[in-house]
Each structure stands twice: as structure tokens, then as C-alpha cells.
């Protein structure tokens, strides 16, 4: 149910603002923007495409955040292990919309 691929909006159709030409590494297709009426993409935006419809705009910021969280994975736990040696560990639960630890838990004052 779930084959959806990121594509870049190249141009909005001049005669139909609900239709855009979207590019996926050189493969192009008209994609229906009707499900994103409340937050219309503009050329240069990235959208998630499923059965020829744009389902969502892709947040470059969230993607970048996720990557940095992943890169810190081993380092966070290494730091946590070090911290636990000082008896300063803090098991603050992860917030609902986070993809990992909050930076503040680790890189802040606790590891001094």
C-alpha cells in the first residue's frame, strides 16, 4: 500500500494549479497536487508521490535533523555511559514527535 517516492517539483502547469511536473532523478510525470491544496508546493519543493498524487511536502529540515540524530547515535550512548560513571545519568523520556534524543539532554551541562 505504500510505494511512495520523493520527487522535486519542476513546474506548476500554467493552466491548472493542481497539476505539476515532478522529477525523480530524470524521470518526469505530471503529478496531481489536489491533496496539498492547503499548502501548495512551489517549484523546487520536494513532495512524496504515490499513484501520481503528491501526498505530502518533504521537510528538508526534518530530514537533516534525522540524519544528525542518527549520526549521533553511538556517540550519545557512549557519552551516556561515561556520564553514568559519574552518577549523573538522566533517563528523560523521548518527546512524542522526536526521532531520537533531544540534543540538550546530552550535549548540555550534564556532561561537564
Amino acid at each position: 500500500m505504500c510505494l511512495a517516492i520523493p520527487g522535486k517539483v519542476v513546474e506548476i502547469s500554467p493552466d491548472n494549479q493542481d497539476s505539476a511536473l515532478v522529477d525523480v532523478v530524470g524521470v518526469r510525470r505530471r503529478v496531481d497536487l489536489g491533496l496539498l491544496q492547503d499548502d501548495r508546493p512551489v517549484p523546487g519543493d520536494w513532495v512524496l508521490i504515490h499513484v501520481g498524487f503528491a501526498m505530502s511536502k518533504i521537510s528538508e529540515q526534518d530530514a537533516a535533523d534525522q540524519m544528525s540524530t542518527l549520526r549521533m547515535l553511538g556517540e550519545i550512548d557512549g557519552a551516556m555511559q561515561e556520564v553514568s560513571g559519574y552518577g549523573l545519568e538522566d533517563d528523560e523520556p523521548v518527546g512524542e514527535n522526536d526521532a531520537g534524543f533531544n540534543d540538550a539532554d546530552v550535549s548540555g551541562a550534564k556532561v561537564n
Partner: protein
Amino acid sequence: MAHGAGGKASRKLIEGLFAPLLFGAEPGPLGDAAHVDMNGTKVAITTDAFVVKPLSFPGGSIGELAVNGTVNDLAVSGAKAEAMVVSYVLEAGTPTPVLEAAIRAMAKAARDAGVRIVAGDTKVVEHGKADQMYITTTGIGRLLPGVSLDPRSVQVGDKILLSGPIGDHGITILLARGELDFEADLRSDTRSVLPLVEALIRAAGPGIRWMRDPTRGGAATSLNELARDCGLGMVLFEDQIPVRDTVRGACELLGLDPLHIANEGQFLAVVSPEYADAAINALSLAPGGSEAQVIGEVREQPAGAVLVTTLYGGSRIVDMLVGDPLPRIC
């Protein structure tokens, strides 16, 4: 219909029905071409049918496919095509320009490939049959010296080579049919691979165990056939398989695997480890071979199957195709 798609069903049809009736009890591994002994002279011979739709597409037409396909079948059997005969089955009412274009394309492709078309036949069938044109060819050639191919000679440790990027032809055709409404700057890779095969034989002849042109069914199907014929495992390194970005994009969008997509200008070769370096060097330096890669190696396991591995340690079995590759949305 699945029986023509090149994968499992095709193989069952050939092995189960044709082979016993036509080839007798023990035909041995089936290749696309055969070497026939005629009173001491060995001649290579092959036959093929071309039913592509649409007849014309970016990068070529049924004409080029017919010539190159025939030349390539002979080349990967270790033979140089000398002559071809052609049979056309034409649908009544096919416009003359369409026919003319196909024949011109064949003539040019034959000149480019250095093969002579020496005889031909035409039949016309009623409107509604033959999708405008089907072409059948038979090609004969002489064996190239210095190479002896047998899938049963493949051994653990042998390297698997691929002459260039896969998936160009099949995706081009899929997009050219127009049903999926995608566009891409992509062309069929149809070409004669004979020059590359000759370069490979010159550099590594004694070490070449097996060659195949991965047409319908893709590289996965050809390698699965080899795996079955030799009882060993074909292990491929995913990051080393050459695929153009556009083909990758189309495959991701449509849920297809490039390993299952047809190619018309590439070939696979299995080469012994001692000759592998010379082989890949010769290919990459030859015209049209710059994208050749070592894509894997032969191991004991998984016996009779093809495994694709990733840099992070994941792997998956890639089976022969069952029917045509179908786009999916799930």
C-alpha cells in the same frame, strides 16, 4: 503470455515441452545458440523472434533489435556472426513507411555490426494479427578461437562481469508504450556486443567460462539459469552493479528491480580469477566498455540461486522472473 517473458514460465515451456520433443533425451544446458559440427567444420547458429511494441522507440527500433539480438546471441556463444536470414510476418494494412523504416534500420544495423543479410521471406497475415510486424531471424557464424564456454566449467571463486549499465532497454520500452505517462531522457542500449566480446576473448580467452546477453528477464534470469546449470551460487555486490540514475528512478517509482529488466546491448561473463583483472581492463578500455564492472563472484552457497548483498551486510535472493515485470503501487 508469461511464457514469453523470459523467466520461469519460458524456461518451463522450453525445458518441459520443446526440449524433450525437439532435442531428444539429454540436451544438456540450453543456450541461445548452438555449435553444429558439419563434416568437421563447426558452425554457430541461432534463431530469434522479435515482437517488440512499439516498433520504434528512443535509441532504435525492431530493426536494430533483430540484427543486434542475433549478432549478440552468437557473440556470447563465442562466435562471430557472418550472415543472417530474416523472415517478416506483416499485418495486412501496415503502412509502407513503417515497413520501410524497419528494413532501413535493419540494413544499417547489419552494416554497423558487420553481418550480411543474405536471404529473407515475407508473409502477410490478416489485420488484427502480428501487431504490425514480427521479425524472425536466423544467424550463422564461425567460432571465435581461443575460447571454450560451458556453464559446467564454472567454479567457486570465478568472477562475474557485466559490460555496462542494466535496465536501459526495458525501461525505455515501458515508457515508450505510453500507458504509464512517464517521460525520461533514456534510450535503448541496443548495439552489437561483438567488439567487446572479441576484446574480452583476446585478453582473457582461456579464463572465460560462460557468457550470456541478459535480454528478457534481465540479468537475474540469466544468472539464475547459470546457477541452476552449474549448481553453484551467484553472489552479487549491489553497490557494484551499474545502473543509470534515470533507470533507478523509474524502477523506484514503479517498484521494479533493475536486475529483472531487459537489456539489448550488454552481456554477462564469468571469468576465472586469474584472468579477471585482464578481462575487466580489456573491457573498460574497449570502445563502449567504459562502464563494465565486476559485479560479483561465484560461491558454493546459495547453491543454484542468485544472492545480492549490500555493503552493510544485508542480502536478498533474486529469483528468475515470473512473467513480465509489472509496476506496483504497494
